[in-house]
């Protein structure tokens, strides 16, 4: 009797489990389908932009909507890029971004080193001020900083070192002064995880602090440097407000300002050119996103900030 009961219960349990398994599988398939629709919704505007950038004028304003252009008009891209000097805008944008990234990495790593490895009076006070700066809305300092930079003469036309427009300085100089508290914070956390013995050995061998930072610490910090480089590049590339305020004259414009100017002109007209220009502006960030996804997913997950 008892053995029989056991088998019956056992079989019941197996039946129940397989029923649950079927429910679970069905649910996962449904979820998979739902998520695919959601994904299409999320990518919709971007895909529409890319597809429209290749449409002929007649297809853009066709009713009902043409989803995929019959004859991809690659000429839209050349036309869009020559409508305004986009090559010049691209050079400006990359110059600003690269100067920002280099300044951010050098200054933030030095400051992070001071906050993680050196003992000096006021360190904790300044560290809390640094964290406070992270929460400070950009808008509060926008106007006084503009007046400051104007007093310094950086809002005028002209160049420094014969090549660099003065107008770039307000966008770049703050980053050479480590005014990117998030990155200082990220680097400090990373430096703290590096064994101090390495440094002590180097100090005994007579190395100075700069040598320690640049020859020992930074080579060990490649992951955090990559994260900071990706974030600060994207931030600088995507920025609109600062370039809008500081970059005077079309010669100094970035891609963002060029696209905006084109949008103002093409309110009703040549959408396909505008979409082509938008696609071009998107390509650099898309490449970074594809190749460096690991770094910013990590960066966001650990700090909660980043991106824009």
């Amino acid at each position, binding site marked *: 009797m008892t053995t029989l009961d056991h088998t019956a219960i056992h079989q019941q349990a197996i039946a129940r489990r397989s029923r649950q398994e079927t429910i679970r599988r069905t649910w996962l398939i449904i979820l998979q389908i739902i998520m695919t629709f959601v994904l299409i919704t999320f990518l919709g505007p971007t895909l529409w932009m890319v597809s429209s950038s290749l449409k002929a004028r007649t297809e853009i304003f066709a009713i009902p909507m043409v989803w995929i252009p019959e004859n991809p008009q690659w000429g839209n891209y050349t036309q869009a890029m020559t409508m305004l000097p986009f090559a010049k805008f691209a050079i400006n944008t990359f110059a600003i971004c690269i100067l920002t990234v280099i300044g951010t990495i050098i200054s933030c790593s*030095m400051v992070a080193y001071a906050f993680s490895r050196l003992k000096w009076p006021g360190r904790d006070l300044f560290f809390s001020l640094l964290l406070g700066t992270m929460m400070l809305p950009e*808008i509060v300092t926008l106007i006084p900083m503009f007046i400051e930079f104007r007093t310094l003469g950086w809002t005028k036309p002209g160049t420094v070192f014969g090549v660099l427009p003065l107008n770039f300085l307000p966008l770049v100089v703050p980053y050479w002064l480590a005014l990117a508290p998030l990155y200082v914070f990220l680097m400090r956390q990373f430096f703290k995880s590096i064994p101090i013995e390495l440094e002590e050995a180097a100090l005994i061998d007579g190395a100075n602090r700069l040598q320690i*930072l640049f020859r020992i610490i930074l080579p060990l910090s490649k992951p955090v440097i990559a994260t900071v480089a990706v974030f600060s590049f994207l931030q600088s590339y995507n920025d609109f407000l600062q370039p809008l305020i500081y970059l005077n004259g079309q010669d100094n414009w970035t891609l963002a300002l060029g696209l905006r100017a084109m949008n103002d002109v093409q309110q009703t007209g040549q959408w396909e050119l505008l979409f082509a220009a938008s696609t071009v*502006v998107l390509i650099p960030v898309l490449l970074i996103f594809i190749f460096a996804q690991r770094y910013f997913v990590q960066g966001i997950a650990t700090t909660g900030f980043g991106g824009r």
Partner: protein
Amino acid sequence: MAIVTRSKERITWMRAREWIEGYLFAGPFLVGFFAFVAFPMLFSIWLMFQKWDLLGEPTFVGLRNIERALTDELALKSLYNSAFYTILAVPFQLVISFTLALALTQAIKFRSIYRAGFYLPIIIPVVATAVVWQRVFHPDFGILNEVLGIFGVPPQKWLLEPHLAKPAFIFMSFWMIGRQMVIFIAGLGNIPVQLMEAAQIDGAGKLRSLFNITIPLMTPLIFYNMVIAIINSFQTFVPSLIMTDGGPQNETAFVVLNIYRNGFQFFNMGYASALAWELFIIVVGFTIVQFYVSNRWVYYES
């Protein structure tokens, strides 16, 4: 004795040297902080009491700028617009990002592709986003009306109708939830498996463990995402500058757009500073209230 004093001297010297090195290495930030954070903040407090168009000399106007910031119709309208946008956009954003994060922690295939796709909209430069979305909302040739048409919804004049403009911006913000989602995914990964298994053994269904275990454990991250989202939403303005220029009938004139116009189009530096401080105090106040209320609903492991 001599050796001891010498080594003491050496220690003092080493410490002094470390102090100097500390200040030198932190130097960029110390200079940057005083030049571009502390000084500008004090300077803008002074500016609040001046009338200055940058051309002539600043003149002292007492509390007039502050009074105007608190009573001007457009200033109040812009505050209302930003508050309306924030209060409606943030809860939806949190629900969407949390739901997507939950779905992406289930055993479905291609999770990293979904994650990348949901994340993509926030890395697109804000100008490109605005340019495209302005056309997404276009009454005749926009993709939104086209898609809604499939479900039988008649075409709407999204950005042109006063009562539809803010909802359109709120709708657009639902695409910008990638960062919140990634944070939620990270948090969901940290929930102890044993806890879920224990609940299952006790006979709790999926839905019950979601509401009794997952959500309570995630409240710190929900709170964090909420605080950041509110701070950011109060400051949105680039989309409205590009897509509607604050219209129709100032329905999308958000606070920062009003500050930007007063500062950089009308050159009312004093008034713009007063508006900026008004926003700053509201945002800080909002944040403090949230921290205060958070004790009641945020679960912190002791």
